[in-house]
């Protein structure tokens, strides 16, 4: 919670005296006005990126994954790096909406809706990669255990299958959590819109929500339980993603700290992306009094904490590699820092461990332009972390005669670009069609929104 300098009062979450009507107007305005030229330019860029990615993807389907840089020994490269990267970004959304809700951190309210939306778009983007990297994607239906004509089931022992269940569950649960949160807001939009077709759409989507307290009672309990379910879910999803690597015997992959390390890293990269997008959104949509500098400062503190956790994991891996006395394990880490891909390692290290340390200083935490630069670096650093883990370990594992280099192709880059295009296109569409701040939630935490005397019969 944000306390004032005397530590006796909470700071207001919405700055300035805003009426509910004004909140509605500010938040609903992007959905009620035509997009401006900046929006069109933005979506033009993101759609172009998306198109490039789609073309590369189409060619990949036609010619096969040989178009990519994957080879022996690097059987996994950009495909899995991008998958882990985007899933990680999704985690921040769930953390903000679910975990911070459970911790009763009210400052999440201004950013929770947006973050949840980002989660869904990130998971959608991430979900493309396991699908396309199977080589014969049209057979991906066999990933699910349904009675098929071969009489075959799936391999339940494999973490790749656990991923199928985990990501599907994560997407579904995040989606319903997001949708449930949107119902009251759709009702608000339904009742204020002046367009017939929008009225029809919002009527359908809001399901006839009336704001009845008999409904709020059940609704709030479900919201709480979903938050309580989403929290272990998000931890489990990235844990299972980490199992993809950690259950193997590859040095640099097989290490017990991977599950919490990956989760911390996911939250770290996710917050980086959320901050990046929010800094833009609050400026473009005039929501600086709702998405306040206090909120951004809190997010920077979380970035600092999770970045330090990631740094801890790096140190533990390094130390135990030495401690184990296993020469192959030791070589792996020396190779990462000083081998042919050392440039990737040092990008990762500086962006994830070194630069975020600047957030120790309050001045920097509250400086928006500097924050923007730093969180961009976090995104870069976390992408490179997955590159280092996956590619570097695979290029040089046990047998020196099997060593080989990895070089991505333009199709790899095209698909990576396309994933950013897809994500940002969806975000831009979301920002113009749905309220990016939860109107009902933010009203509930403004000053004077709750009754002044507490009642005993809860």
């Amino acid at each position, binding site marked *: *919670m944000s*306390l004032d*300098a005397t*530590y006796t009062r909470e700071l207001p979450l919405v700055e300035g005296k805003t009426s509910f009507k004004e909140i509605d107007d500010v938040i609903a305005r992007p959905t009620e006005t035509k997009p401006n030229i900046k929006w069109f330019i933005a979506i033009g860029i993101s759609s172009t990126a998306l198109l490039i990615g789609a073309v590369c993807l189409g060619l990949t389907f036609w010619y096969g994954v040989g178009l990519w840089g994957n080879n022996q020994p690097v059987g996994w490269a950009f495909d899995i790096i991008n998958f882990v990267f985007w899933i990680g970004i999704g985690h921040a959304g769930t953390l903000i909406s679910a975990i911070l809700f459970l911790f009763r951190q009210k400052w999440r309210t201004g950013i929770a809706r947006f973050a949840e939306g980002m989660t869904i778009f990130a998971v959608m983007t991430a979900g493309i990669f396991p699908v396309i990297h199977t080589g014969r994607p049209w057979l991906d239906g066999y990933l699910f255990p349904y009675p098929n004509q071969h009489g075959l089931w799936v391999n339940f022992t494999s973490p790749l299958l656990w991923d199928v269940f985990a990501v599907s569950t994560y997407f579904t649960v995040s989606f319903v959590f997001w949708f449930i949160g949107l119902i009251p807001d759709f009702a608000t939009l339904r009742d204020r819109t002046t367009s017939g077709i929008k009225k029809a759409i919002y009527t359908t989507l809001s399901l006839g929500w009336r704001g009845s307290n008999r409904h709020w009672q059940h609704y709030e309990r479900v919201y709480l339980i979903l938050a309580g379910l989403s929290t272990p879910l998000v931890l489990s999803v990235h844990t299972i993603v980490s199992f993809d690597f950690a259950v193997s015997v590859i040095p640099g992959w*097989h290490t*017990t700290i991977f*599950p919490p390390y990956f989760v911390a890293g996911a939250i770290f990269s996710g917050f980086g992306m959320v901050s990046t997008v929010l800094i833009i959104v609050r400026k473009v949509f005039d929501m600086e009094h709702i998405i306040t500098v206090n909120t951004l400062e809190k997010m920077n503190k979380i970035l600092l904490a999770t970045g330090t956790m990631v740094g801890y994991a790096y140190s533990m891996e390094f130390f135990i590699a030495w*401690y*184990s006395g296993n020469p192959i394990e030791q070589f792996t880490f020396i190779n990462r820092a000083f081998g042919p891909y050392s440039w990737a390692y040092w990008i990762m290290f500086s962006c994830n461990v070194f630069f975020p340390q600047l957030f120790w200083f309050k001045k920097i935490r509250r400086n928006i332009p500097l924050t923007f630069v730093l969180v961009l670096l976090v995104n870069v650093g976390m992408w490179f972390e997955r590159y280092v883990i996956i590619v570097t370990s695979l290029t040089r594992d046990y047998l020196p005669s099997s060593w080989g280099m990895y070089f991505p192709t333009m199709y790899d880059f095209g698909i990576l670009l396309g994933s950013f295009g897809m994500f940002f296109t969806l975000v831009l569409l979301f920002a113009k069609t749905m309220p990016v701040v939860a109107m009902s939630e933010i009203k509930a935490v403004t000053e004077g929104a709750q009754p002044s005397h507490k009642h005993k019969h809860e």
Partner: protein
Amino acid sequence: MDYIKKQLPDSLAKTGGIMLAVGVIILVMAFIFTPERAFFDYLWIYLFMVSISVGSLALVALEYLVGATWSTPFRRITEILASMTPVLIILAIPLFFGMHDLFHWTHTEVVENDAILTAKSPYLNVEFFIARTAFCLLLWVMFYFLLTRNSEKQDLDGDPKYTKRNVTLSTIFAPLFVVTITIAAIDWAMSLEPHWFSTIFGVYYFAGTIVAALAATTYASVKLKEGGYLDKSLGDDSFYSLGTLMFGFNVFWAYIAFSQFILIWYADLPEETFWLIHRWEGSWKFVSLALLFFHFVFPFLILVGRNIKTNIRALKWMAPWMLAAHALDLYWLIFPTLFRGNASIGWQELSFPFIIIGLSMVVFKLSAGRKNLMAVKDPKMQMGLDFHL
């Protein structure tokens, strides 16, 4: 605030003293008859005390770090629990005499003939080991004094500058705590099996530590509330968060334990699996299963409901349960090195509960001394007391 300062009864120290004396006698007899086993018991006691004391210190720092207000009414109790940190220095000294019995890697003739141990000897050697432990202890003690001194000074005038100072101290302490608790876990627990290693081990001990520290604060707080030592306006709702955190960190502990287990089991590398196999042989299987059910499954099912966590009578049972679970966890970590093939509980192990409980009671009473049992002028105190679900 409706706090009336009431001193803890002398009987607390008296009972504690007797229990401590009994425990010490048992331990001394153990040293005479089965010295190796006695050192393992002593290590068990030491690691448990580290969990409670340093864990409590970490909880104090955590409150300052995140600006929580619900925990302010309990913070002084946690600080008093953390006062066992200086005691650790005295506790550690006999342990150094037991290093030869405890640690394989102190036997130079063994190390000479073992390539792996020789490779580790820059880290696992007696001098560096003692230096590291001393460093951790001194660091913990230093931050204990700094943090609690500010907190107690604030009792006089309620100046927010003390809170500000403690926030700064806590921010510095947090990463240092993580590093030192990892070092303690690796040195004192993981190096019992010097051929084995696990990068998550520090996190594992950390998770158990936090659960134990939360349980200790919960139990002490409930007992003090029931005894009328705390503010009358402190409601049952405030205990909810203690229960929730205990539940949540317990789930976190289980998650870490499972992560470690599944990865070692899955890859099936003999250089790692032997540690788990030792904990499944003979009657160790039952200890492992007991750990699963007693530390995770049953507490999970009991604490998952919403209402139980505002029931302070229920918390009065669950908190000691979690403390016992942590003790079992440490037993499971430490003793398979001594007892290969089958677990063993004997009269020597009785020293553990007697010393732990006795020492805690004595130190708590001595440390509470003339202090307020609540941080009376803390600026966040009113918000903490006003907390409602």
